[in-house]
């Protein structure tokens, strides 16, 4: 399931990365991660699966208890001062100085970067504000911003300098559907400029919509990583039968080796039989033969969700 080979070192690389918090909680467990340059990488996992902890370790905020991490080919946190100016980050939501204006917030964070040129600060702040569409509200106190505006200002902080890598931790969290759409559009635009985007999410459809690559986390462990299309294709499709005789259909399918059956109204779904040589046409014939009135019969393509269920044996919404 390795990503296709890309030029140069990966944008993010972790080896055996682990974090056990002082309470004894093992939040991240032996993570091996490889994010190809130029990818939009979806770091997928339910709440509590260790995404934020991993990101904090990558950025040098939290010291791993084991393993190592590298950003843009340089070890973290050892080379933080050389690497981080080329990395923009949004970690667990925005954090702002409520008593400062949006513009002054950006100036504050820009002043913290020793490589940021004060001479170009104004222009860079204007460009970042424009980029996230906050130009009009730039002079208002950040405390008066809506969550969506705060999130965009947080993204503007990440865009104060040209970046090679953007690390965005659940950038659509807490936003309304409109805000989520806007944020995803922004992420796609940024990726279109050639920036590698590492995006964590607990939303399967978000990763399917936005990302080229993905890694799936559950309970602190990495379950799989690779191109989204490959992972989804790797998951077997689900057999879907629509029929007014759902009960009969389910029992016939069960007899013929279909597993994990579930019935929802007139829709019966299940995993097709695994023995080689089974033809789905025979299944359909068996249904008709048993007097089941079949409205539709087919296999739905595998999705990331199927891949996830196959990997964990449990639904995606289960918290770690």
């Amino acid at each position: 399931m390795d990503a296709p080979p890309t030029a140069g070192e990966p944008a993010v690389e972790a080896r055996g990365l682990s974090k056990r918090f002082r309470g004894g909680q093992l939040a991240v467990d032996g993570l091996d991660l490889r994010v190809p340059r130029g990818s939009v990488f979806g770091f997928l996992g339910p709440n509590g699966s260790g995404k934020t902890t991993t990101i904090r370790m990558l950025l040098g905020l939290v010291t791993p208890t084991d393993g190592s991490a590298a950003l843009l080919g340089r070890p973290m946190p050892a080379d933080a001062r050389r690497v981080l100016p080329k990395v923009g980050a949004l970690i667990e939501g925005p954090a702002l100085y409520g008593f400062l204006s949006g513009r002054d917030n950006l100036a504050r964070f820009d002043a913290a970067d020793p490589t940021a040129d004060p001479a170009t600060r104004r222009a860079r702040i204007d460009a970042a504000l424009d980029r996230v569409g906050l130009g009009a509200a730039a002079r208002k106190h950040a405390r008066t911003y809506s969550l969506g505006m705060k999130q965009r200002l947080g993204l503007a902080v990440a865009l104060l300098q040209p970046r090679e890598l953007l690390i965005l931790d659940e950038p659509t969290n807490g936003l309304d559907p409109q805000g989520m759409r806007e944020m995803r559009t922004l992420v796609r635009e940024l990726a279109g400029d050639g920036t590698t985007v590492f995006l964590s999410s607990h939303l399967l459809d978000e990763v399917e919509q936005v990302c080229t690559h993905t890694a799936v986390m559950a309970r602190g462990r990495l379950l799989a990583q690779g191109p989204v299309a490959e992972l989804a294709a790797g998951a077997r499709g689900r057999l879907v039968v629509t029929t007014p005789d759902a009960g009969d259909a389910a029992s016939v399918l069960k007899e013929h080796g279909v597993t994990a059956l579930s019935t929802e109204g007139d829709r019966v779904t299940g995993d097709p039989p695994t023995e080689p040589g089974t033809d789905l046409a025979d299944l359909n014939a068996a249904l008709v033969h048993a007097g089941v009135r079949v409205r539709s019969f087919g296999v739905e393509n595998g999705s990331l969700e199927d891949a996830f269920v196959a990997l964990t044996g449990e639904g995606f919404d289960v918290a770690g």
Partner: protein
Amino acid sequence: MSPADGAASAVRAEAAASGPGTAVRRPSPLWTLSLFRSELTVTLRRWRTLALLGILAVLPVLIGIAVKIETGGGDGGGGGDGGEGPAFINQITNNGLFLVFTALAATLPFFLPMTVGVVAGDAVAGEASAGTLRYLLVAPAGRTRLLLAKFAALLVFCLLATLVVALSAVLVGAALFPLGDITLLSGVTVPLSEGLLRALAIAVAVAVSLVGLAALGLFVSTLTGSGIAAMSATVGLLITVQIVGAIPQLDVVHPYLFPYHWMSFADLLRAPVPWGDILANAGLQGVYAAVFGSAAWARFTTRDITS
């Protein structure tokens, strides 16, 4: 050495083989200055800081009015039983400049250090609880650089807070009482200009007195992720130390407490100035700054930022 350093070396060895990405602009030699200025601005734009400075500006006004009312009754000042601390209050009616010394003597035991304790306690912990700390660190501010900038801004705040008291006292003193030549504690009379100069020197000496507490507060601030907890812990420490300093049975520890030489600033009102106590004070504050500054550094550079 943090465990990460050792663990990272495996990756580092490999990374060294491949070339660097795009060049990053070299930090200017004045790499902390920009952050220090930003730090100071942010501190001074906080509503809390402004409120504290406002209180400090009002205190000399209250003292001045109280003295005016008291002496207006023809009492003539009454018998100040100054105790150990200098009680310049009797002299204010003759010379308003003494209000500076009185105001500093009155605010130094608690109000002035309390403001420093609040600002110092909030310095790191406040940003941790607001979450802005993580964005400063990934900017990347650099933990040592950020701590240095914060400590430098704290030192400026110590001086500023003291100057607010002194300046307010000079203005109130000039408005309510006559100004003129000053008779020093040692009996010599010097012109007003020299009196003002000595007042400035006293303000600096008082500001220096606050450095130890500033370092202590900064250290406390690195211990917790809650700004409120750090502020109250620092002010609580100040109160505790002042109480311990007032218990005669504990006098063996008194010389090691940061307020021990605080009233030495009065020596600047003698001619010639006996420097011993003033220098001892500076030395003690320096020791506190070194000890708690290092402790803050050790803690802050290894701490997990999880807020």
